[in-house]
């Protein structure tokens, strides 16, 4: 099996996605149980706040194990068409855009936040250049001012400091 063909692929290819999926669910289950036992579990007739999280956590642990153990090696012939590299640029830009909205919304106001989320996330697409993103962001700023600030009277100042 070719190990050099891109970072996460041979990994996933070798063990199958299901193993990781199962492990993830298993971990969530463990997390729920460990959080649940810190609250009061109580008894069946008088349940405490911890009972339900522990029960759901136990289900997650079991299901996670079941997913992991029933995972099969993926069919090499069927997998061949789905080899897409992870889209880091898109992911980073979208995440950064939303974060910028949160931060600038607090320390800048609605307009800077709007501009930032549209501009930054638009750069995530490889076909968009800075000019496209700029025009789109400015256009959304206008829409935002008219629709949300003026028409819908959103409780969000256009500009603010802290």
């Amino acid at each position, binding site marked *: 099996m070719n190990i050099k063909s891109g970072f996460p692929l041979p990994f996933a290819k070798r063990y199958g996605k299901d193993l990781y999926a199962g492990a993830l669910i298993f971990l969530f289950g463990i997390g729920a149980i460990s959080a649940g036992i810190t609250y009061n579990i109580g008894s069946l007739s*008088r349940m405490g706040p911890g009972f339900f999280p522990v029960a759901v956590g136990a289900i997650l642990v079991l299901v996670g194990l079941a997913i992991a153990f029933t995972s099969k090696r993926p069919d090499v012939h069927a997998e061949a068409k789905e080899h897409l590299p992870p889209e880091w640029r*898109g992911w980073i830009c979208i995440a950064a855009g939303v974060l910028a909205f949160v931060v600038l919304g607090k320390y800048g106001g609605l307009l800077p936040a*709007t501009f930032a989320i549209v501009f930054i*996330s638009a750069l995530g*697409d*490889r076909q968009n250049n800075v000019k496209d993103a700029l025009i789109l962001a400015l256009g959304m700023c206008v829409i935002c001012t008219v629709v949300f600030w003026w028409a819908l009277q959103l409780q*969000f100042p256009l500009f603010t400091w802290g």
Partner: protein
Amino acid sequence: MIEQSLLNLMQGFGVALQPHNLMWSFFGVLIGNLIGVLPGMGALSAISMLLPLTYTMHPVPAILMLAGIFYGSQYGGAIGAILLNLPCHPPHAVTCLDGYPMTLAGKGGTALGITMISSFFAASVGIIVMIFASPLLVSIAFKFGPTELFSIMLLGLLAGGTMSKGSALKGVAMTAMGLLIGIAGTDVNSGVMRLTFGLPELSDKVELVALALGLFGVAEFLRNVNRMQVIGSGTKVRLRDMRPSIAELKQSFMPMVRGTAIGTLFGAMPGTGPTITTFIAYALEKKISKTPDRFGHGALEGVAAPEASSHSKTQVDFIPTMSLGIPGDAVMALILGALLIQGIQPGPQLISEHADLFWGLIASFWIGNVLLVILNVPLIGIWVKLLRVPYRYLYPSALFFIAVGVYSTNNSLFEVGEVLVFGIAGAIFAALDFHVAPILLGYVLGPMVEEYFRRALLLSHGNMMVFVTRPISATFVACSALLVLLQVFFWARGSFTKRNTERRLREQRASSERLPQ
């Protein structure tokens, strides 16, 4: 009882036809259709984006508008599926199979016309079933105590997890994740903060809109950015093309009826999603067709039956959602969430306590479907143009609308952050072949499931047998057990037949290698 229902329905029309309510219904259908048509946006993202708008409205127009958004976006999704082979709402994946080949053959307009006719027909049947079945169900539902409610919710959750799409185990895992997210926040009985990671903002539960927009909005953008290639099909659909001929109408009439019947049947079952219904309707048509080869190459029946089944299923789905408080799929879960936010507890009392809402909603279904037909006749040209909005402009703008929409629910920037967290989580889950829709089902039902479970065991002094000794509850538990057993059976048979076919393939290959020599 039937006369009473009809009388109530008349009253409902009175409510729904009030200019104020009619306007919101119209607005919902228009906006829903608009958003549904945009590539990559489905009914779920449309409803969750507009949910914040309804918070300040009265319950009746709010629900009328949401229902309008729902079928508007559903129909909009069908346009994308037929003309561009883009299934934005999972149930339309089946419509693509034959709808897109019809477009390629220059019959896209006819396919759209048939879709409209079958959805209107199916919705009407579904509404009639709703009118007569709801009071009946309510009279049974009054016998439900916490034990029964827990059992039926268990069945709904199991069915929602196992029967939606993909691996059943993964569906169950997602449902359980949803339950967990649903109970995060302050425990109503003890006041303990649970699963809040020490964040005071989370003490008031995870925001429904943030969860839905994260899972179905941001996660979709993360999955599709730089991947979604929207190529305008160049089809021009005119009004004239949408009118099917008499022969085509005849050809699609029986599939329409059968699709409607399947949808109605499945709608009554809590937890079965619309996707599975459309697949069954399609498979049935293919099975009983005299010329099964045509399917997948533009068979009209392959468009009419699944569309009819998904629309009748949707209508009938409102029955368990409204009268028991148990949503059939993620969209219904959203509508249920909206009702809860409005302070309306769905359940058997809803029909008697909020008669104007319930019957107004039913009447508005009809009005909304008529509005949909009227709207789409002149606007179809615009929708077709909208289909070509490049994804690179679409998703940044949509991201902004999501951020502002979430902010406006509680004027909280923290919840905008929640959207990002759920978006990334949803994209990771989707990358691992999970289907995230059951999360929403679990989230809405989570607190109720816990509450009924606690109450049932409090009343029985901790005796778990109470779930199988009470007859109604025992029926639901038996159904759940049957469901699990069936899944295990299919899984076992599946791995068996797979091994068999693999062996046969190997033998075949071996023999074919031998042949040429």
